C-alpha cells in the first residue's frame, strides 16, 4: 500500500444504520480478545452508509469501482486457503471513476439471510462481515466491518428430562436426573443424583460442562474438547438412599448454542459430565449430551415469579421438564462399565441405526437446534455407548485413565 512512500489515499468508513439503538454482542477475536459488534438476526436488513474520505485534499483518486459485499463465511484454521462463503451478496456502490472529494454511498442488503450464528472456536470460525472494496490499479482499498449474528430458537415443544441409572457392578449405582434435555443459554439445570449402591469411598462429585467442537469432517476432522465449567455438587461421602440436589446456572458460563453440522463444516456440541472422585483419586464419570439453544430475551419479571419459573426452588419443580415424553422413551438403563482404573475405552457395539421417524422421536421442524435427541435410546437395551453421535469413539482426554459409568 505504501509504495514509494505513498500512504493510503483514502479512508473508508462503514456506518451501520441504527447503530445507536441496536444491541451489541461480544465476539471473541482470534487472539482471544473480546469485542462488541452490532447484533443482527436472520432476515434482518443490513443497511447503512459507506463514507470515502480522501486523505489528500485537492487530491484525485482514480478507481475502477467501489462495491460492498455482505459475507458469511466459515474458516477452518487448518485449511486456511479455503474460505467457505455460505452467504455472499454484493452491491455496486460506484462505477469506475475519479473522486475529487469525499463521497458517501448508501447500501442496503434487504432481509439478508443469516442462517447460522457467529462463532469463534478453537479450530473454526464463522463470521459475518461487510466488505467494501475500492478497486485500483495497483492494489485495492478494502475495509471490513464485522457484525455479530445470533440465532434464536423457540422453546422446544418436547423437552423430556434425562433420567438414567448407571453404575459399576457391586461398586456404585446411581440414578441421575436432569430436568430437561434442551436448555437455553440462561437456563438452570435442575436435577438430582440418587445413590442406589455405594461401596466406594467418595470424596466429592461435580458436574462439568464440556464443549466439543468438531471441525471438518471425515478422517481429517479435528475434535477439540473444552471443559467450560466445573461445578461441585457434593462434598463428602454419601450413603445409599441419599439424594443430592443439582442446580447449575448456565448464565455463569461462556456458552454458545449447540451447532450441528453447520454448512457441513463443523459442529459444536455440549455435554454434561457427571464426575465422582473417590478417596484414591479414581474418577467415575457419565457423560450426557444436552442441547443448548438461544432464547429471545424476555423483559424482566418480578423476582419471585422469576425464581420460581426458573426452577430455582428445587422442590417446586415437582415434575421435571415439560410434558412427559411418550411412553416409549426409555429412561432407565443400567450401564455396566468395564474395569474402571484401566481406563479401557467403553467399546460400543455398533449402534442400532436410529429410527429416524420412529413415533414421537423427532421433535421440531427446525433442523438447526434439534434433531432426534441423542439422549433418547430405544428400548433395545443395548449397553449405552459413551459416544452417541458416531463421530469417533473418543475418550475424555484427561479422564482416559478413569472409569466410565
Amino acid at each position, binding site marked *: 500500500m505504501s509504495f514509494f512512500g505513498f500512504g493510503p489515499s483514502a479512508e473508508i468508513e462503514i456506518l451501520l444504520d441504527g447503530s445507536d439503538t441496536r444491541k451489541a454482542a461480544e465476539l471473541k477475536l482470534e487472539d482471544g480478545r473480546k469485542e462488541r459488534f452490532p447484533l443482527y438476526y436472520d432476515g434482518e436488513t443490513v443497511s447503512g452508509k459507506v463514507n470515502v474520505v480522501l486523505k489528500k485534499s485537492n487530491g484525485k483518486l482514480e478507481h475502477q469501482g467501489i462495491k460492498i459485499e455482505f459475507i458469511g463465511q466459515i474458516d477452518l484454521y487448518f485449511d486456511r486457503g479455503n474460505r467457505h462463503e455460505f452467504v455472499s451478496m454484493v452491491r455496486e456502490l460506484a462505477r469506475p471513476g475519479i473522486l475529487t472529494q469525499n463521497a458517501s454511498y448508501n447500501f442496503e442488503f434487504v432481509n439478508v439471510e443469516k442462517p447460522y450464528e457467529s462463532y469463534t472456536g478453537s479450530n473454526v470460525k464463522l463470521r459475518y462481515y461487510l466488505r467494501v472494496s475500492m478497486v485500483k490499479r495497483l492494489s485495492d482499498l478494502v475495509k471490513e466491518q464485522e457484525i455479530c449474528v445470533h440465532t434464536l430458537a423457540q422453546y422446544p415443544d418436547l423437552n423430556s428430562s434425562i433420567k438414567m441409572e448407571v453404575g459399576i457392578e457391586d461398586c456404585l449405582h446411581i440414578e441421575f436426573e436432569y430436568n430437561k434435555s434442551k436448555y437455553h443459554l440462561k437456563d438452570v439445570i435442575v436435577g438430582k443424583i440418587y445413590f442406589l449402591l455405594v461401596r466406594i*469411598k467418595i*470424596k*466429592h462429585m461435580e458436574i462439568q460442562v464440556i464443549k466439543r467442537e468438531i471441525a471438518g469432517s471425515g478422517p481429517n476432522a479435528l475434535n477439540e474438547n473444552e471443559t467450560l*465449567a*466445573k*461445578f*461441585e*455438587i*457434593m*462434598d*463428602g*461421602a*454419601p*450413603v445409599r438412599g*441419599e*439424594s*443430592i*440436589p443439582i*442446580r447449575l*446456572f448456565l*448464565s*455463569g458460563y461462556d456458552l454458545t448454542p449447540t451447532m450441528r453440522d453447520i454448512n457441513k463444516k463443523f459442529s459444536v456440541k455440549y455435554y454434561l459430565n457427571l464426575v465422582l472422585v473417590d*478417596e484414591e483419586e479414581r474418577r467415575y464419570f457419565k457423560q450426557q449430551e444436552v442441547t443448548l439453544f438461544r432464547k429471545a430475551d424476555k423483559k*424482566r419479571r418480578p*423476582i*419471585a415469579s422469576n*425464581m*420460581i419459573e*426458573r426452577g*430455582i*426452588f*428445587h*422442590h*417446586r419443580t415437582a415434575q421435571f421438564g415439560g410434558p412427559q415424553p411418550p411412553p416409549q422413551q426409555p429412561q432407565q438403563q443400567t450401564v455396566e462399565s468395564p474395569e474402571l482404573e484401566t481406563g479401557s475405552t467403553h467399546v460400543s457395539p455398533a449402534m442400532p441405526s436410529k429410527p429416524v421417524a420412529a413415533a414421537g422421536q423427532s421433535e421440531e421442524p427446525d433442523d438447526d437446534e434439534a434433531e432426534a435427541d441423542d439422549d433418547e435410546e430405544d428400548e433395545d437395551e443395548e449397553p449405552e455407548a459413551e459416544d452417541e453421535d458416531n463421530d469417533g469413539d473418543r475418550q475424555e482426554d484427561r479422564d482416559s485413565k478413569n472409569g466410565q459409568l
Partner: protein
Amino acid sequence: LFWQTRSQDMSGPVTEDQEKLLDEALSVVKLQAFQMKRCLDKAKLMDALKHASNMLGELRTSLLSPKSYYELYMLITDEMRHLELYLLDEFQKGRRVQDLYELVQYAGNIIPRLYLLITVGVVYIKCSEISRKDILKDLVEMCRGVQHPLRGLFLRNYLLQCTKNVLPDCVEEEQEDSGSVSDSIDFVLLNFSEMNKLWVRMQHQGHTRERDRREQERRELKLLVGTNLVRLSQLDTIDVQRYRSVVLPAVLEQVVNCRDALSQDYVMECIIQVFPDEYHLATLQDFLQACAELNPAVPVKNILISLINRLSAFATRDGSNGIPSDIPLFDFFSEQIAKIIENKPDLSPEDLVSLQAALTGLALGVYKDREDYVDKVLETTNSGLDKLGVEHINDHSNLSRELMKLLKLPIDLWNDALVLLRLRHYSPLLQRLDSPTKKSVSAYLLQNMLNNGTLVPSSEQVEQLLDLVRCLVADPGADAAAAAADATATNSLGGDPGDGSANGAGPGSEADNEDLAEEQSLLGRVVHLFSTGPDLLDEQFGVLKTARRILATGGGRRVKYTLPPVVYQAYQLAIRCAAGDPLPYRKL
C-alpha cells in the same frame, strides 16, 4: 506441600500440626475478611463476595480437628455477619442487587456457595423479598450437597443460627407463602435428622483403633445436634398437642432408627432437658416406649433417672398443680424400670439401686402418703439384689454409696421415723450394708428423730426401732475384737479393711472409743423420745422396760451411755405417777 494443596485428604488430623494449620487458616480468613470489608465500604459487592468466598473456602478443609474447625468456623461466621448487615442495609434502602440469590450460586465450590446462599436467603426473608416458606425449604434441602460429616454439621448449624429469628411461629399463614409453625417444624426436623445422620456417620469413619478419639470428637459436637431441639422448644406456637402428635414422634423415630448409642443417649437426655415437664407428662408412654427400643449400650437408667427426677421436682415445686391424677406416674416408671432390669442381665447392682432410688424419690415427692409405694420399691430392690447374688457389700463400693443414698431418702423426705418402722423392707435392706455404713445410716436416722422430735409412743415401736438400729445397739463382734485388741494389739477385724487403720484406730483404740461414745450418746438421747401420751403411764413403763432390756444387750461399753437416760426417764415417770396417778407402779 502437603498442606498447601486444596485436596481433600481424608486422613485424620495430626495433632502436633493442628495449631499450625489453624493459625494458617485463621490468617487467611483475617486477610480475606479485611478485603471483603474494604470492598463493602466502597460498595463493590461483587468483589466483596469474591473475598467472602475465599474466606469460606477455608471451611473446605479436611485437616482440622473438630475443635480447631469450630474455632475457624466461629471466626468466619462472625465476619459473615458484616456481609449480612451490609446486604440488609442495602436492601432496606431499596438498593437490592438483582438476582443475588442466583448469583451466589455460581460459585463453583459447594461450601462457599451454600454458606453464601444461606446468608443471602436470610436477607431475602428479612426483607420480605420472596416466599419465606420457599426459601427456608430451599436452604434446608440444598444443604444435602454436603455429605461430609464435620463440614455438614457446621453448615447446618450455620443454617440454624442464621434462621433463628425468622422461623414462622404462627398457627396460620399470615400472608401467602409466609409459612406457619408447621413449616418451621418441618424445617427444623429435617435439619435435625440430617444432622443426626451425619453425626452418627462420624462413628464409622476411619480406623477402629481410633474409635475412642472419634467418640470424644463426637461428644464435642453434640451441641450442634441438640440445638435443633432447642430451636423447636423456642417456637411458642407449639403446644402440647403438636408436640405429642408431630414433634416428638419424629424425633423419637430418628433417634431410635439411627441405632447409635452415643446419639441416643444424648438426644433422649436432651429431650428431657429442653422441653417443658408438662409435655413429658403428656407423652410418657411414647417416651418410655422409645427408651425400651434403644441400643443396649445406652445407659437407659441415666435417662430414666433424669426424667424421674425432673418430674419429681416439677410435682413438688411451689405453685405446681402436681401430677394430673389420670397419670399413674409411679406405675409407669415402676413397670419401665422392671422392664429394663429384665432386659439387661448385666445391669450392675449399683445401677439397679440408683434406679430404685430415683423411683423412691418420685414416690416420696409426688405420693407422699403412699407408704406402700416406697415399701414396694424397697422390696423390689431387695429381691433385685438377691437375684444378682449380692451378699457382701463392700463399704467403699459404689453399691454401698448408692444404697446409702436410697436409704436416706425416706428419712429426709418423711422426717418421721415411725413411718419407716412400718415399712417391712427397710430394715432388711439396711442390714445388707457393711458395719460402718450401716451405723452411719442408723445414726442419721436417730439424728433425724432428734431434729424432728419424733416421739416413739409404744413399746412395740421401741422394739422395732432398736431392732432397726441394732448395729448401734449391740455389736458383740466389735466388743470381742476390742478386748482382743487390748490383749494383742492387732488392727484387723471382720470386714473393714480400711477402717481406721489410717489413724491406727482399730477396735479398742482411742478413735474407736470416741466413735463409740458419739454413737451411744446419740442413742441415749433418743431414749428421751421414748414417750407415750400424757396419761398412758402404764404404757410408758412398758416402753422403758423394753428399752432397758434391749439396750442392756449392748454390753458394758455401751450401757454407760445408754442406760442413764432410761433411768432418768424412769424417775420422770415416777414423779408423774406420784403426782397423780393412783395406779401402783412396779419397781424397776
